[in-house]
């Protein structure tokens, strides 16, 4: 399991725009580096990060080789109702990691 961190407020007023920061540890190996015998190190990158809230995907990031290791993203969302925000990182080889954070909306 990679280490994922979400930084966001736990409470908000309804309609408030909150900022969310998300980071996960991942090598994001581009596939362009060569090892010490000149062979390409295989590509291993996360390709997708999503945030769902209230049953809808409210943010989606597609990651390519140009995203730095331990991918970080900060984005915002409108606090609509109390509930869980579900964050997921995945690649195209079966990796999937989900984190959940509850937001109280008053």
């Amino acid at each position, binding site marked *: 399991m990679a280490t994922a961190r979400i930084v966001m407020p736990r409470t908000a007023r309804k309609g408030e725009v909150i900022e969310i920061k998300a980071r996960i540890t991942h090598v994001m190996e581009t596939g362009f*580096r060569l090892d010490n015998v000149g062979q390409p190190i*295989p*590509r291993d990158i996360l390709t997708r990060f999503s945030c769902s809230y209230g049953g809808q995907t409210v943010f989606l990031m597609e990651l390519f080789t*140009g995203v*730095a290791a331990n991918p970080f*993203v900060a*984005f915002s969302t409108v606090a609509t109702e109390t509930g869980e925000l579900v964050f997921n990182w995945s690649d*195209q080889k079966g990796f999937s990691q989900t984190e959940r954070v509850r937001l109280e909306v008053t």
Partner: protein
Amino acid sequence: MTSSSKIGHQEWKRLSRRGVLTGTAGLLISVGLIDGAHATPETMQEAIAGALGETPIRPGRITLDVPPLAENGNSVSLLIEVESPMTAADHVKTIYVFAEKNPLTDVARFHLGPRAGRARVHTVIRLSQTQFVKVLAEMSDGSCWAQTAEVIVTIGGCLDPL
């Protein structure tokens, strides 16, 4: 070398699940990448056309906050803000980030919508050498806006051997 190119093609087919046309441009570029080939302003334009089609692209509405000089190309901060009310009727749908001289021109894409509240995203990218970063925003009304920023890179990312 042939086996390296085959591995490159297979992996690139997987990566181009979205945006098939952009992926095709990536496939064309990926042959011989290990040799040091990379995107160019022309191939970046092809990738942009693949992603956005014939829509005219206008400069403006986007502010980029990126260091003019990056000590380490493996880690370059990129903050993007697009002017938009982010209402259901008028919002940013997608933000595209391209690097004109990286081994592969696609860097990231952000899919927003009215629930974002604000069209502002911050991430950290890799730049292989001094180059322009081009950011495009596709709006809900179909219009496309663009902004570029040049980053001087002291030590390139992507290609360092171990």
